[in-house]
């Protein structure tokens, strides 16, 4: 069996399951964020359940619109907070603590073998820790909160074997974009995208999360990585427990195995309005940008802030461009202050905002006017996602975002890396 089949079999109380089968799986962690929370609360009340299946298995985050940007949003968040109090939820991360997809692993709520569902499509991120994790809607979450289980169709697995030698300044994001460009927005529809190979092995946890995070952009039900020493060390530090990794049987036959060699990879850009519109950064050089976004559940981690600060050190953000910096969690924010990264980013002219999703979903803290262009370290460039329906979004790595902020136009980050190396 594939590791994900084993995880779902265990959650369904079965010895064996296979792709295509529908199972009733018990949930280990249910994550609800405040953007979905008020709706989930309404549906939960509608169900008339007397209690939540297990308060200790529910994680609540405030991240999409924090602090509340409008009166009506503040009212909705207030309502959600009363719901939280009424049912006695305990694992609640209030505004400013961070984005759900950073907090769930960081606070020890993701581990090998866990079944995690969340009210967010990027719940797939936790596959980087050997969990089975997928996004669900509000009604379904209400049902999960009442029953502690949900039906799932066991997905087929698709393996990406990532090999070669990563060129300097090419980041996890560039590799993820390459895969998106190759297989398209529906290339992994309903499947599990498993990422493996020497490049994943040598990659940091921060980098690995970019792949599982972006797997949903290709239609995947979940992203997955087999836990290794690095994963187990992270998980044991964060959860205080040792979880045995669940691995795929040696004789398991994958439907698809795709080899990705990164040795000749250049920094990439996905242009509007699809993550699959991928071309080398050199083809967009000179495209003027009004905003550069360094943050989100894809590009707001330590490694991302580090490379951006390295590029921006002693430089100035172009006066016609706003650089928005949003650390993915308070912990990352504090570490970045300690390392002096935040100083560097502010000195360069960056606007540092509190941890959360920021403008990524069009809520606040840097939404776009008609005709404006943003180069973003996030995962989606859908039409109108960050504000006006007539704005344009390009996606790239944090390094490319930082270099482009300096010039006010899309810029190859290798130019700045070279300068740094020579000084």
């Amino acid at each position: 069996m594939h590791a994900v089949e084993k995880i779902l079999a265990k959650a369904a109380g079965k010895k064996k399951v296979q792709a295509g089968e529908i199972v009733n799986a018990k949930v280990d962690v249910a994550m609800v964020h405040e953007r979905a929370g008020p709706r989930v609360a309404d549906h939960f009340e509608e169900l008339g359940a007397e209690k939540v299946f297990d308060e200790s298995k529910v994680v609540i985050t405030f991240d999409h619109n924090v602090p509340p940007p409008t009166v009506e949003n503040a009212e909705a968040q207030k309502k959600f907070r009363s719901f939280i109090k009424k049912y006695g939820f305990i694992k609640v991360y209030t505004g400013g603590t961070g984005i759900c997809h950073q907090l769930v692993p960081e606070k020890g709520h993701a581990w090998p073998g866990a079944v995690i569902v969340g009210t967010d499509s990027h719940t797939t991120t936790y596959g980087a820790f050997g969990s089975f994790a997928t996004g669900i809607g509000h009604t379904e979450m209400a049902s999960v909160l009442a029953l502690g289980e949900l039906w799932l169709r066991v997905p087929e697995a698709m393996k990406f074997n990532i090999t070669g030698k990563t060129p300097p300044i090419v980041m996890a994001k560039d590799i993820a974009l390459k895969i998106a460009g190759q297989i398209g927005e529906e290339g992994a529809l309903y499947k599990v995208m498993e990422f493996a190979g020497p490049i994943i092995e040598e990659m940091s946890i921060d980098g690995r999360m970019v792949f599982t995070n972006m797997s949903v952009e290709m239609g995947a039900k979940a992203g997955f990585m087999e836990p290794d020493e690095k994963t187990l060390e992270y998980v044991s530090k964060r959860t205080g427990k040792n979880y045995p990794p669940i691995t795929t049987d040696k004789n398991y036959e994958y439907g698809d195995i795709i080899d990705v060699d990164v040795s000749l990879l250049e920094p990439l850009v996905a242009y509007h309005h699809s993550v699959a519109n991928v071309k080398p950064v050199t083809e967009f050089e000179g495209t003027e940008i009004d905003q550069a976004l360094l943050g989100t559940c894809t590009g707001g981690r330590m490694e991302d802030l580090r490379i951006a600060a390295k590029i921006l050190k002693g430089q100035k953000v172009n006066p016609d461009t706003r650089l928005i910096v949003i650390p993915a969690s308070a912990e990352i924010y504090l570490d970045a202050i300690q390392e002096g990264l935040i100083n560097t980013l502010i000195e360069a002219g960056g606007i540092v905002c509190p941890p959360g999703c920021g403008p990524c979903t069009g809520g606040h803290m840097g939404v776009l006017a008609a005709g404006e262009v943003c180069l973003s370290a996030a995962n989606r460039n859908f039409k109108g996602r960050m504000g006006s329906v007539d704005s344009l979004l390009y996606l790239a790595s944090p390094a490319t975002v930082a270099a482009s902020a300096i010039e006010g136009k899309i810029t190859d980050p290798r130019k700045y890396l070279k300068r740094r190396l020579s000084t």
Partner: protein
Amino acid sequence: MTRGRVWKFGDNINTDIVYPGRYLKSFLPPEEMAKHAMEGAGPDFSKNVQPGDIIVAGRNFGCGSSREEAVTSLKATRIGGIVAESFARIFFRNAVNVGLPVLECKGITQRVKGGDILEVEFKTGLIKNVSTGEEIKTLPLPDFMMMILDKGGLIPYTKEKLSLMKKEKHTSKSYRS
């Protein structure tokens, strides 16, 4: 059977087209949400959609966010349902969960034009293009999902499950005593 006029859309219609993120923070009621349904594709749909109309779309309809507003806003326009070449998985589940009929049909975009009149039997997977006279057969939803849709969505389904659980608990308690 659902009979209605076709609104045709392309491939990869994402949730920001169906229900743009900028409205999410307002938590609008369904009738207000309906006014923004498919807004990313232009104002035409929400202005002119009629109850019973049918959306026909290409591959990967509803990709992107898990926002249930994408299906709630469409349901609130009182469309009869959606027939697409394929659906993104969260949208597909959400649609069934809120009781909005959906059907996957390979090749549908080749055989139906915007404005055609369709008769769709979501239960059997039979589609009749009244405008051309052509009949198209596709697989209906799996039994399990059809059962949820028949009950009116996941809320009635879970309600029933909860009341069964309560009864069982009660029975086993009285047995023990």
